[in-house]
């Protein structure tokens, strides 16, 4: 890289942001000068349109295309439901489905519970900033980085040899036999889930901590004066106060969990009964050259998110009613 290249990059970034600000500014300027009659409508369009257009191009159209692809083979011919039949007749299909369900139940619940507990415990404590950074750090490490870290933890050496994996070291310390953790179903699935929980707890902790700070202190003080204990205060004041954030956190982590495949890919590649649907999808679409099969798996993922969507619809309705 020469200095000229560097300046060129800086120019690109500055120019990019400048153009963006100019466009947004122009939109805002124009909507305020729209004819009064249609102003509300124009304003609504101005606020929504940029995001909606981008989403339509970048996600809605691809989602529709993926759904169509799910009914074709790798030569692009229409084959009806064959891909779905293939998916459910594979020898490991049920295991993959079962694993996906275990993931999507355990990861959101445990990450949120641990993240919430941690956020509550360290709230207003000294060094809160650093405490938070420690749990946040896994988020800042990429999935691949996280997988390297945990492969080290689960590393196996024969009994008698010095262990280099922390888990086996602990096991042998208590007189146990070292295990090939990642090759032992069903425990290996849970060990992979721990990695995801390790990452997502940071997200839950950060969002929930921020939310806890938003609860008016008067409410907590009032509860204290009523002579409630800490648990009651948590139940009756804190929990209701952060309900909205809890739903957001659980929903976000659930969807992220349904989609995650990097951890499975880099740690076991889905072998030894650890595969999940997202991993199969990636393998079929990008390694095996079977986009139809990959798309069919993606469609199943779309369907699996439906319960989460329905739950959110209900929450949203309740919110609107309260307002």
């Amino acid at each position, binding site marked *: 890289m020469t200095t000229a*290249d*560097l300046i060129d*990059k800086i120019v*690109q*970034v500055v*120019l990019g942001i400048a153009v*963006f600000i100019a466009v*947004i500014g122009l939109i*805002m300027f124009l909507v305020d000068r729209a004819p009064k009659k249609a102003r509300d409508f124009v*304003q*609504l369009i101005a*606020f*929504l349109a*940029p*995001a909606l257009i*981008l989403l339509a191009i970048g*996600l809605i159209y*691809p*989602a529709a295309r993926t759904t169509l692809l799910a009914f074709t083979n790798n030569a692009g011919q229409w084959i009806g439901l064959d891909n779905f039949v293939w998916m459910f007749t594979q020898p490991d299909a049920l295991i993959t489905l079962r694993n996906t369900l275990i993931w999507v139940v355990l990861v959101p619940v445990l990450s949120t*519970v*641990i993240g919430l*507990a941690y956020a*509550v*415990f360290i*709230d207003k*404590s000294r060094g*809160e*900033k650093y*405490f938070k950074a*420690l749990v946040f*750090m896994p988020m*800042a*490490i990429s999935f691949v980085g996280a997988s*390297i870290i945990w492969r080290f*933890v689960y590393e196996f050496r024969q009994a008698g040899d010095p262990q*280099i*994996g922390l888990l086996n070291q602990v096991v042998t310390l208590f007189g146990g036999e070292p295990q090939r953790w990642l090759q032992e179903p069903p425990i290996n699935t849970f060990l992979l889930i*721990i990695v995801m929980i*390790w990452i997502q*707890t940071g997200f839950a902790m950060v*969002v929930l901590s*921020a939310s806890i*700070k938003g609860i008016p202190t008067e409410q*907590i*003080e009032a509860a204290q004066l009523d002579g409630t204990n*800490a648990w009651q*205060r*948590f139940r009756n004041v804190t929990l209701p106060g952060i309900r*909205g954030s809890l739903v*957001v956190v659980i929903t*976000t982590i659930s969807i992220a969990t349904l*989609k995650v495949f990097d951890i499975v890919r880099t740690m076991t590649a889905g072998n030894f009964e650890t595969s999940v649907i*997202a991993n199969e999808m990636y393998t079929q*679409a*990008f390694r095996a050259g079977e986009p139809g099969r990959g*798309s069919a798996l993606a469609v199943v*993922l779309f369907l699996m998110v439906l319960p989460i*969507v329905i739950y959110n*619809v209900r929450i*949203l309705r309740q919110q609107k009613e309260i307002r």
Partner: protein
Amino acid sequence: MTSTTPNAAMLRPQDAGADARVEDTAKAKRVKRRLTSRTATIASLIIAVLWTLPTFGLFVSSFRPRDQILENGWWTIFANPGFTLANYQEVLLSASASSPQLGAYFANSLSIAIPATVFPLVLAAMAAYAFAWVPFKGSSTLFIVIFALQIVPLQMALIPLLQMFTQFLQPAQEAVSDTLPFIPTSNFLQIWIAHTIFALPLAIFLLHNFIAEIPGEVIEAARVDGASHSQVFWRIIIPLALPALASFAIFQFLWVWNDLLVALIFSGGTEEAAPLTQRLAELTGSRGQEWQRLTAAAFVSLAIPLIVFFSLQRYFVRGLLAGSTKG
């Protein structure tokens, strides 16, 4: 298992700060509270240690020679002393014809990450405001559709998006730079747009949650005074939502910083836009034989996200939902 301790301990949350404020509680109660506070402290310490230990192990390993990493555990570093900076040296300083100096990759990653954080932030805030405070028919349905789009796997969206870029965006870009030669054709534009699109569903979902909880009286008062939506947005929503925006900015920055796939697909195949993650992936060698370099690479790549995190920490403290009453 890692999770049982905090689970049990969670039953006794404690608010140390509030403790100090309540002077008139009985002594017995106070003793009890301090005890539970101690449990909470211990529990949080345990979580902190459990969460840090794996990373710490990798950190120690990154300073050890390859043979030692393979032969004994990092916790025996004092029994088996061995210290080397070779891993970092290779990651930071090795440059060659195929892969220029790391500085170039850092510059690329920053050039990608900064706009790709700003753009979705602004667009999502606008959309979230519309969903929360501009009543219109089908608002809830549209919002649900957008949030459900989070499930669309990135990998499935690449081909159609790229097709559209090559058909429409690239000719447009070339036309612009042909007529106005002082504007460079940006290698980053496609990557920015792609990251923006992929970030929008989650960004709108998160920010909506916050913006919707801003007290309605504040906004209605302004509307009654004759403020337009754009005035309300810039003068009331944005200042009140600053903490939320800052929080999302950090997450978005992280995700973009750690991305490899989007950058590879939309960089137009040039080295000029390749991010740091590409270099780090490459360091393992053609057949993965140099994996020990990854230990150092993980920490080199971690540095910038941590700087951003610490700098924006204060906005986490006031948090996603805190702004409404403080402004």
